């Protein structure tokens, strides 16, 4: 598998570390049901068979966190972008 790092270019799988579901959004810690929402965000997964948006870390490259769209059934990479929205570093 080869992942197109937006900064470094396409690199071999071995340069990256996987985290998982990119839909994770840190819930509001002050909300009344924060516990329930954190449990849901940290533990529950859709775990789809097919296109999936996930987080990879280019630890052996630019140390960038990437948002990768990948088909979990075929391993086909459908799209890659930096997790950190453009502009924040500039």
């Amino acid at each position, binding site marked *: *598998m*080869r992942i197109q790092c937006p900064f470094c270019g396409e690199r*071999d799988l071995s340069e990256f570390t996987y985290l998982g579901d990119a839909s994770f959004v840190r819930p509001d810690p002050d909300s009344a049901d924060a*516990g329930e929402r954190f449990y849901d965000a*940290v533990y529950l997964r859709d775990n789809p068979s097919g296109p999936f948006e996930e987080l990879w870390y280019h630890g052996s490259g630019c140390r*960038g*966190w990437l948002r990768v769209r990948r088909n979990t059934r075929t*391993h086909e990479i459908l799209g890659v972008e930096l997790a950190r929205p453009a502009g924040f570093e500039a």
Partner: protein
Amino acid sequence: MSDSAHRLTEGGLIDRRKPLSFTFDGQPYSGFDGDTLASALLGAGVKVVGRSFKYHRPRGILSAGCEEPNALVELRTGARREPNTRATVAELYEGLEARSQNRWPSLALDVGAINSLLSPIFVAGFYYKTFMWPAAFWEKVYEPLIRRAAGLGMATHEADPDRYEKAHAFCDVLIIGGGPAGLAAALSAGRAGARVILCDEDFVVGGRLNAERLEIEGSSGADWARRAEAELRSFGDVRIMPRTTVFGAYDSGISGARTFGALERVSDHLRVPAPHQPRQRLWKIVASRAVLAAGAVERPIVFGGNDRPGVMLASAVRTYVNRFGVAPARQAAVFTSGDDGWKTLSDLAAAGIGVAAVIDARNDVPPALLAAAQRVSARVFTGAHVADARGSHGIHRISIRAGNRIEHVDVDGLAVSGGWNPCAALTTHVGGRPRWSETISAFVPGDLPAGMSVAGAAGGSLTLEAALREGAAAGAEAAAATGFAGAEIPSWRTSEDSAAARPFWHVGECPSKAFVDFQHDVTDGDIALAAREGYRSVELLKRYTTLGMATDQGKTSSLNGHAIMAALTERSIPEVGTTTARPPYTPVAIGAFAGHHRGKEFKPTRLTAGHAWARQNTEVFVEAGQWLRAQWFPRPGEHDWLESVSREVKAVRSSAGVCDVSTLGKIDIQGADAGAFLDRVYINTFSTLPMGKVRYGLMLREDGFVMDDGTTARLGETHYVMSTTTANAAKVMQHLEHARQVLWPELDVQMVSVTEQWAQYAVAGPSSRRLLEGLLGDVIDLSNTAFPYLACAQLAWRGVPVRLFRISFSGEMAYEIAIPARHGDALIRAIMTAGQEFGAVPYGTEALGVMRIEKGHVAGNELNGTTTAGDLGLGRMLSKKKDCIGRVLSGRPGLIDPDRPTLVGVRPVDRKARLHAGAHFLNLGAAATLENDQGYITSVAYSPMLEGWIALGLLARGPSRHGERLLAHSPVRGGDTEVEVVSPIFFDPEGTRLHG
């Protein structure tokens, strides 16, 4: 029989001026440069080469390629012994030593052959039906027997003496296979200017061109191949890799570039590798496009005695005659179901080898072929088949069934052609499914992986003309797809050849055993039994009978087996389906996948700037992740580690000691929001930390459990430097980058690891201040008031930037001094010199551990990923004023349960007794059961200060149980010890020594 008995006087690609001597089962033989072991054995008249897996039947050479199921030998000796080497692909070299396998005492006389008599019992899956009583007998009696009988060659237990290497290659077009299709593809892609890599598993390119008497542009196929190779070598961006098998296709990326695994056999054709050369090289080839031109494998036909030595694939017979100048037989017959087999007739005749008969399963055979048979006065049987072959150590007679008439013909060789199976494995490695072709009665590539095309026999196009045409087109198309369009597509005139055939798998009832999978001794009867017992899916069939699971992975057997199953269950072959090919295409040495990552090179070694100095003072180092750290510094006369470590501890506590702490992670954190950022990743607050101060911090995972701890210093308004544990440095960096880039991208924070930039030493003990004053006195005031506990400063010392921290892991007054790593060696030497007057000693990780346990500081054994801040007695650090990663889930009932094991200290009631980490706590008198488990000991040390063993542990409701007595239960190490629960701070509980 004389050496050259079966060697033709001329022809072939062998060099008769270069004879090579070799031995087989100790017998000396000779062959020629250009031979394989198989061709050399055949040339020397050797017919029986091995014994089969189950029945130990004598077996000869079936094929001339990697599909060989029978001719497996042990190659080389001693530490280089290679079991199961296919004689058909082993290149002959001077002094080669080979032995037959799976026989005792000798190949000719093999006791195991008794199994053949018991074969009525040893049917598929017989072992599932018996060997069950008594149960105890399995490991002791049955299994050892089965294991000894099974297996093929014998592997050595000696370490492999050869080197392996890995390398990376990139190209526009990868061409897999150097036969006519592959060469044509390479020529058209190369001429277009693309970067081309052409791999072929053989040691000469050309494939079937070297084995058939076919012509291209009026010259022999072999000559054409030489010319094509020469032209390709003239292109700067074309690389030809012989002896290289592309064994696997792996996933690609958006660009379409795909990774292929390939094995280059750099030195397997030599007695030993040349200096600085590996035995084999694993290539990871990244190709934008690939052309699969791997050819096809001929199928045998299932009939009685079809496994006997002398029965050979027709294509292999032609290979041995045309390429190696070897006569596999003196008087042969041909058994075919298509025109292709008839080529063998003319090739044998041309080589002056007698052909007694041609048996064609078809009723209508083209007249031209019949005429050819007439010319050499070979008898022709159409609509007929061979029912049986006789001769256990080499056939001497075949029985031909034509209608209801049986005829016997005396021959010493039988060429069999049951059609061709395309080598399509690489198209299925990444999920493609093969498609059934009625035209050639075989599975051909179905949906292809993106960026891959197929040419020639690999795609089911079996004629030379088609191979060249499709190859040229595929090469040009692939080149164009990578930006090298426009070059005209070459084409070539070829001689006639026809691949017309009719499917024919199995001759039906036979007088003797008819084999489907030669190597695993799977017969037509076994397939029938599987069908009867309900193992009808091809996967169940395979698993129950082991069809296709041998070292050849069913290249010659699977389809025949599936065809027989289809007939038995009244389904079509496509309905029955086929098993999925998995990498590698042919077996690959495990050493090649490891490359040079073995022994000390298994993983890189990280050495601190002070390592050279440490080496001069101790030989005792311990692995800390990839780092090597000094464990202790023995002195002459000390008897054991305990004596050295205790001496180091006492020295630190009484005067001063120095420890290399460079391996701890250090992260430089800057930016306007650096403080706010730290507040969110630590459970305690750092935005309020004054400049020039250090604070201990604890970090949680989002699930509320402790992740790591360490000190963080504030060097400037927007500048912090964080320290992490050695073990978690990389993990913490990744965690912080996630927080910075994904969770809170809006914060103005920049960070980078500076672990490697700074060499850092802990200077600890009552004399540490005076020691450092001797070094730094002229650049900083170290008095308690000017530089108190938890102060930090940046200095310039002797022209070098230095960082100084007043922190302590030992509980003594202590400092950590950091300096750019290139000066690390000089600094440690300077410290030791300055320390001489105080009797300062270097101390290692053991003494460090003892002192942190004496102080009740937690470390790796307590930060084990399952403990909470509360468990470690650090719950009070959790700020109520702010949120941080892990705060919310750390409040779950399971994490705040008062019964959770919590940090305590323990001492043996008998102060002399020894403790062991991993012992479980039991209430005195309680039975040793999991229900009564109260917790366990995490860390143990001998405290020279308390003159006894002490330990930290996690104990249910621990803090409330100080003074209680328990049993430390450790049946696997050290036994049971009665212990007393105490405070985890064993030494200087008031912490007065910190301040000196």
